[in-house]
């Protein structure tokens, strides 16, 4: 059983092997350079297209927070409008050689903290209030929003689920300012 194409031995008229010929040596040197670059560059820089260390899913998580934002009329609002979304839960930006992030910057979010645990840190009540109130300043039509933080994590040694859930009514600083 053979797997790919069947190859026959290449020898020139002097019964020299491929590497003994000038042409073979040239090809081999070129191959060596390509293979060396393919192996070495991703190890140093991780992501520099077309070199890649395939960093998807590289950062493991212990817990992660998700958010729901609801307007006073009960309508659910986009969490990204308040910077509470997770941009790339499986593909966090890598920090190498002074470079951090992607070609374009993702919309800013409270979830993006540090490079070692990009989505594992759970924002405190104060952080969430600060973040949401800063966004509410540009939304004078909303006197307040109701934000629910759900922390997803291990419930026991076998299952994951919502470990804790907190709901806050966050006032718009514009409406409470004198």
């Amino acid at each position, binding site marked *: 059983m053979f797997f790919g194409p069947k*190859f026959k031995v*290449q020898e020139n008229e002097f019964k020299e092997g491929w590497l003994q010929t000038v042409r073979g040596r040239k090809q081999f040197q070129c191959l060596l350079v390509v293979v060396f670059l393919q192996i070495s560059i991703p190890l140093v820089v991780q992501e520099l297209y077309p070199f890649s260390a*395939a960093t998807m899913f590289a950062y493991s998580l212990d817990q992660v927070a998700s958010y729901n934002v609801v307007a006073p009329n009960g309508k659910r609002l986009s969490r990204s409008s308040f910077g509470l979304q997770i941009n790339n839960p*499986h593909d966090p930006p890598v920090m190498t050689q002074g470079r951090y992030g992607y070609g374009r910057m*993702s919309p800013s979010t409270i979830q993006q903290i540090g490079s070692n645990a990009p989505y594992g840190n759970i924002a405190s009540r104060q952080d969430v209030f600060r973040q949401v109130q800063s966004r509410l300043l540009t939304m004078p039509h909303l006197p307040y929003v109701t934000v629910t933080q759900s922390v997803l994590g291990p419930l026991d040694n076998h299952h994951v*689920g919502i470990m804790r859930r907190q709901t806050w009514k966050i006032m718009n600083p514009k409406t409470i300012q004198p």
Partner: protein
Amino acid sequence: MMLSKKIRIGLNSLGDTSAPLFGQLTLWILIGVCIYISTEAHLGYQDYEKGTTVSLLGYVLPETFFDLPYTLVFFKGLFWVSIIVWGLLPFLGITGIWTMKVLTAVVPLMSVLSYTILVSIFWENLPWFRHKFVVPNWVLLYYAMWYFFCRHEISESIVNRNFWSNSDLYPRWVYLGSVFSIALLYNFGGVSKMLAAGLGWGEGLSLQLWVSMMGDPDFFLTDFILSDRVNAHFFQRGVTILQSLSLLAMIPNLRPVIGLGLIAFQSSVELTFGIPFRGNIILLAVFFLPWFGTIQALIAYIKKKAETH
């Protein structure tokens, strides 16, 4: 046999050749894959603020080059035209030997260069990475090197109409270089996980969290992974081991096993998370599974049967 002699024989075997049927069939499939995924390159996130440099060309060319809206369209067009001409080269013998020599030298290099520029422009304008573009780029490079280094033999064979029967045309290094490029990316996938999180990466909790956040509730693996951490641990550890050992695909007898494992892994990722890597799945099947040998053996068997009757 002395080790140095074994190594010399092994390295010399990289120059062994075969008829170009497998090479040309796989080139056409590769062309299809590249055209298919290149349709996904766009500039839809250009209104986001510029981030960091994520491509080698980003350090060579000025930043404004990647911002121009028509560069992507231009290089996409150039890539499609050049790669289609490349695929048709075996049928262009009527153009004459000198034209054919120029075409075999220039068109494949133009294809791989325009693909690299096109995807670099795409990556420089994306708020994430798109790893599915990487493997086809490297396999394309090995195939362009094949046409470039063997341009005289290929052109003469095409013009003399013995291209398909010439057993000196497709070198083993093109085939093994393609297998290596595919296996290496998966190997890096395993290494990256180890470097980022150590052996703890595969303990199952993070897979359960990802599946809980992004998993398709209708796919059976979603329930299976969430039902018990032991199941998640089995999958996650299995993926790390499989990816970290991908380079063992350089050993012919292990290639189909690793290929099937990686195809199963990529299919599961798509069905669970909706992240498609169809181009990689096709290339894994084409370069890792023994379809060509099986078909050839089947044809030989049928011919033999027909002769005996």
